[in-house]
């Protein structure tokens, strides 16, 4: 092995200056632009989460009045869903890694990729303007008739922000689909692709097929609100439940836009840190596509108490149970991958274990709420809040942080401090459970969501939850500090510090602008650790 003493040219030092970033078409630089943007939105959404938890520390509404509290949870939801979770893994890690994983120089449409980032930024700035102008209080779900007729807040501006961000998502999805179809390196067949690529392909399908429906729905809300055109208001000949159908047609699959890329990350992590090919590769690959397709058939499970016909509810409840199958296939296959593997417990693997446990809890409680009778009891309570936070935070965010640590050396050329990283992973896991497990109990006991005051008997559980949120906040701030620190002081990373397979590890860290000096040819299956070992001994012999 050769250790270079002269600073090599790579994508970070190829060009300098603000213009070289704002006008870049390099998917790696755009990935970093996204990383900065969504970190900002995560912190902003986190501030609102903090305010919510502070208000709920005591039973009476003493920190804010109910109107302000409504704005807090709405802004928390809008920012976290549309400006953090949806772009999180695909736009940062996906953007950075998909071209490298398929052995390409860039995405299929590099300029469109840059436009996607500007659209997210424009949507985010518009929603932030609405926030400072007076906020919005409809909940992130924008339910009618409140959003169209009664709310006196900045509904149209906020919805327009989400609308614009939606196009960012559509274009990213389109870019991924075309890249994966057309730009794979010689020898890289569909069934040799890393599972990260498969799961992003499935998520991209949802982005392209689902997001336009959300966009249309938000436009319809704006039209009815501004011009009294009768779409949802019965007095004007509309149907308020139609809004919920259209909204959840996108927003249920949107959960899979958030969690499928996370599942892709976990497949890579579990394989790398147990040194085994993912068990049942084909099943895991197809289960991603199955989740993407099934995901469109179950949206009515959000509407069991909305006056939706009980016959429709029966169909949606029944179909919802089927979505559990492909998710369970993944969990069982990851577990089977560990069997007889040589497991090591580095930071990314800790996050992977966290994901598997928390996602399973989120998924299983999903079956509770998909059951008609049980849902009537827990609907719109903290049980539901806990359930989807186990999926979105326990699932997606754990995968995002695991992936960020795993590919950090590739992205920046620096190692993060392992001790601090392990500590923060542990703090996040404990803080997360302390925050959200009490919410399952609260919801089951009857604490409704979106209320700023509650009876005294719920206080103990609320105090536990708020305490957990403070632990969680510390857990998120530690990586923010040491990752920034590592940019300057971190140990220099080798090309493949974790001994992982996959083409992205075959190029230097950080990679050159066009990723590979020579277009790689693929001659073996994904996760072939024996081939990797042979290549390395070969390398030593030659070098």
């Amino acid at each position, binding site marked *: 092995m050769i250790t270079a003493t002269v600073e090599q040219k790579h994508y970070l030092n190829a060009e300098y200056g603000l213009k070289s970033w704002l006008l870049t078409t390099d998917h790696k630089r755009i990935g970093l632009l996204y990383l900065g943007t969504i970190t900002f939105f995560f912190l902003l959404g986190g501030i609102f989460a903090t305010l919510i938890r502070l208000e709920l520390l005591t039973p009476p509404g003493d920190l804010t009045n109910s109107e302000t509290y409504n704005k807090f949870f709405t802004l928390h939801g809008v920012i976290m869903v549309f400006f953090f979770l949806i772009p999180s893994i695909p736009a940062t890690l996906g953007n950075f890694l998909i071209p490298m994983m398929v052995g390409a120089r860039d995405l299929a449409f590099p300029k469109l990729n840059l436009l996607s980032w500007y659209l997210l930024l424009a949507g985010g700035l518009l929603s932030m303007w609405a926030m400072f102008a007076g906020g919005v209080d409809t909940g992130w779900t924008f339910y009618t008739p409140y959003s169209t007729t009664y709310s006196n807040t900045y509904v149209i501006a906020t919805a327009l922000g989400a609308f614009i961000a939606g196009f960012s998502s559509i274009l990213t999805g389109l870019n991924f689909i075309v890249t994966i179809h057309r730009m794979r390196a010689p020898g890289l067949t569909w069934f040799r692709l890393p599972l990260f690529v498969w799961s992003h392909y499935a998520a991209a399908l949802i982005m392209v*097929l689902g997001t336009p429906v959300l966009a249309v729905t938000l436009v319809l809300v704006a039209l009815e609100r501004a011009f009294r055109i009768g779409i949802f208001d019965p007095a004007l000949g509309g*149907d308020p439940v139609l809004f919920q*159908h259209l909204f959840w*047609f996108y927003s249920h699959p949107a959960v899979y836009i958030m969690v499928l890329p996370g599942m892709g990350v976990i497949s890579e992590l579990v394989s790398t840190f147990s040194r085994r090919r993912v068990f049942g590769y084909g099943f895991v690959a197809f289960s991603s596509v199955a989740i993407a397709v099934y995901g469109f*058939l179950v949206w*009515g499970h959000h509407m069991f108490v909305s*006056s939706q*016909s009980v*016959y*429709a509810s029966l169909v949606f409840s029944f179909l919802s149970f089927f979505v559990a199958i492909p998710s369970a296939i993944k969990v069982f296959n990851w577990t089977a991958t560990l069997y007889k593997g040589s497991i090591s417990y580095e930071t990314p693997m800790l996050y992977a274990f966290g994901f598997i446990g928390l996602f399973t809890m989120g998924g299983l409680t999903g079956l509770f709420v998909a059951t008609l009778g049980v849902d009537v009891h827990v609907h719109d309570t903290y049980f539901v809040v806990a359930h989807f936070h186990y999926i979105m935070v326990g699932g997606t965010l754990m995968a995002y942080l695991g992936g960020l640590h795993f590919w950090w050396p590739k992205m920046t050329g620096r190692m993060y401090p392992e001790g601090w990283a392990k500590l923060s992973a542990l703090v996040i896991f404990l803080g997360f459970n302390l925050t959200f497990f009490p919410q399952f109990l609260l919801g089951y006991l009857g604490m409704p969501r979106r209320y700023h005051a509650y009876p005294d008997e719920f206080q103990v559980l609320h105090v536990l939850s708020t305490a957990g949120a403070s632990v969680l906040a510390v857990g998120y701030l530690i990586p923010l500090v040491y990752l920034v620190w590592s940019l300057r002081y971190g140990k220099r990373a080798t090309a493949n510090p974790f001994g992982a397979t996959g083409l992205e590890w075959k190029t230097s860290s950080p990679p050159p602008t066009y990723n590979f000096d020579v277009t790689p040819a693929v001659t073996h299956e994904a996760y072939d650790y024996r081939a990797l070992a042979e290549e390395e001994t070969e390398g030593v012999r030659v070098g």
Partner: protein
Amino acid sequence: MAEHIISRKTYTYVFLALLVLTGITTAVAFVDLGALNVVVALAIAVVKMLLVALVFMHVLYSRRLTQITVAGGLMWLAILLVLTMTDFVTRGWLGVPGT
């Protein structure tokens, strides 16, 4: 892949067909067919959509993958409409308020 050239004659015929169908839609609107009015109007709209997509947008002459993509989009629209209708159509079946 070489671009398929469609003759000017074909374009003209399709254009005329679209005009005729628009005329029929307008004419039918003045005849009272009860619930059938909507059915007829939508059926004509579907035929027009197919003409535009298949000929004007070249789907008829495109690669299989493009055709599957177009069909997939239509299938997703069908999912949206059919599953929404499972609610709308059956709401009155139980004689209880709120079902």
